[in-house]
């Protein structure tokens, strides 16, 4: 179990690279229209009215839905002209699909902060390994690794050791990303579809790779054809669509849950300001427990489903599909 933390570290770095590669174009499709409008000379005052009275009003004027303020928003709000000029200078040399917006930088910053935190904890925790450990951090990490191993053993069975590095990393990483939104001035990067889709794409590619490696190419084709082979004109497109839908549903589930939860928190936090004097209570407080619960469950579901997809592709006796 000692190697688990090292493997986590490696996989987290790989995931970060994948996020960096995939997050930029996806967010841009949504944001491109708005930035063009702003560039055309219309000031973003119309959207600012909606957020009036909200603490994030000045910072998040270009946002289209409620969101709790985060510190990257404030950086943008205080240096708006300089940052916009800088981004425009970068975007001038790029093709339209790869245009960078401040939102991309924001989300990737939080991803990198989370990755740095996890990496730092993993490195410092596992530096001094011993049979009878004295460091509490090491004991915690070892318990975490053993707990995850035991949990995923229910799905993966005897193959757990081979795939725990990937699915365990996914669990820890997504859990930290989800919970990051509960810290003041921070944000959950998983409330953006691009980040989730990058992770789901990793799962998809890894599952296909595992299937080809473990079954051989012929076994992979046999899996696509299905049981009665003469039904292949029907079954092959069906199976291909099934495989392609998996990453989309995986990422949309996480995205919708975290976005909904963050919006809920922001709306109830906004109510405090909207009704001044009467209710100076932290109205969003009860929903933070809900948010903790949802964050954990969604991280669990994402990684469990990744494990299930891997397990379905393995040459098992109890082959489900």
């Amino acid at each position, binding site marked *: 179990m000692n190697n688990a933390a090292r493997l986590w570290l490696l996989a987290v770095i790989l995931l970060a690279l994948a996020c960096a590669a995939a997050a930029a174009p996806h967010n841009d499709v949504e944001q491109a229209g708005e930035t063009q409008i702003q560039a055309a000379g219309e000031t973003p005052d*119309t*959207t600012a009215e*909606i957020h009036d009275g909200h603490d994030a009003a000045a910072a998040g004027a270009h946002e*289209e*839905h409620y969101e709790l303020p985060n510190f990257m928003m404030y950086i943008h709000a205080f240096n708006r002209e300089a940052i916009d000029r800088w981004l425009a200078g970068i975007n001038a040399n790029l093709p339209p699909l790869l245009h960078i917006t401040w939102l991309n930088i924001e989300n990737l910053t939080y991803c990198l902060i989370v990755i740095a935190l996890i990496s730092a904890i993993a490195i410092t925790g596992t530096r001094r390994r011993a049979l009878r450990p004295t460091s509490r951090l090491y004991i915690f990490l070892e318990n975490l690794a053993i707990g995850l191993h035991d*949990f995923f053993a*229910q*799905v993966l069975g005897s193959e757990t050791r081979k795939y725990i590095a990937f699915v365990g990393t996914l669990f820890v990483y997504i859990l930290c990303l989800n919970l990051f939104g509960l810290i003041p001035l921070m944000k959950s990067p998983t409330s953006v579809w691009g980040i989730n889709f990058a992770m789901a794409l990793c799962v998809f590619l890894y599952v296909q790779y595992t299937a080809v490696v473990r079954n051989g190419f012929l076994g992979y084709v046999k899996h696509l054809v299905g049981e009665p082979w003469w039904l292949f004109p029907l079954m092959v497109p069906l199976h291909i669509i099934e495989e392609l839908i998996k990453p989309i*549903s995986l990422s*949309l*589930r996480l*995205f*919708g*849950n975290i*976005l*909904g939860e963050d919006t809920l928190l922001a709306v109830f936090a906004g109510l405090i300001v909207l009704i001044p004097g009467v209710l100076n209570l932290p109205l969003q407080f009860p929903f933070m427990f809900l948010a903790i619960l949802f964050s954990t*469950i969604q991280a*669990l*579901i994402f990684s*469990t*489903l990744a494990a*299930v997809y891997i397990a379905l592709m393995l040459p098992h006796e109890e082959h489900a599909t």
Partner: protein
Amino acid sequence: MEYQAALGLALPLGLGAAALGCGIGIGMAVNGAMHAMGRQPEVLGKIQTAMIIGAAFIEALTIYALVIAFVLAGKIQ
């Protein structure tokens, strides 16, 4: 009818309809799982995992409606 008004009516109603169906579905799934857990507490962990995965699949349908609502809510303004 303006399309903003149509969206404003349709989005909450559609989300509610999706949540209704998924609520019934999750209720039935959890009902079955609870019965199974009460009958065989020794395989509690396995049943729980399967129940959570099933509930995730059911819940995803509401999430699709929620995502559509979020996408289209930007057009009301």
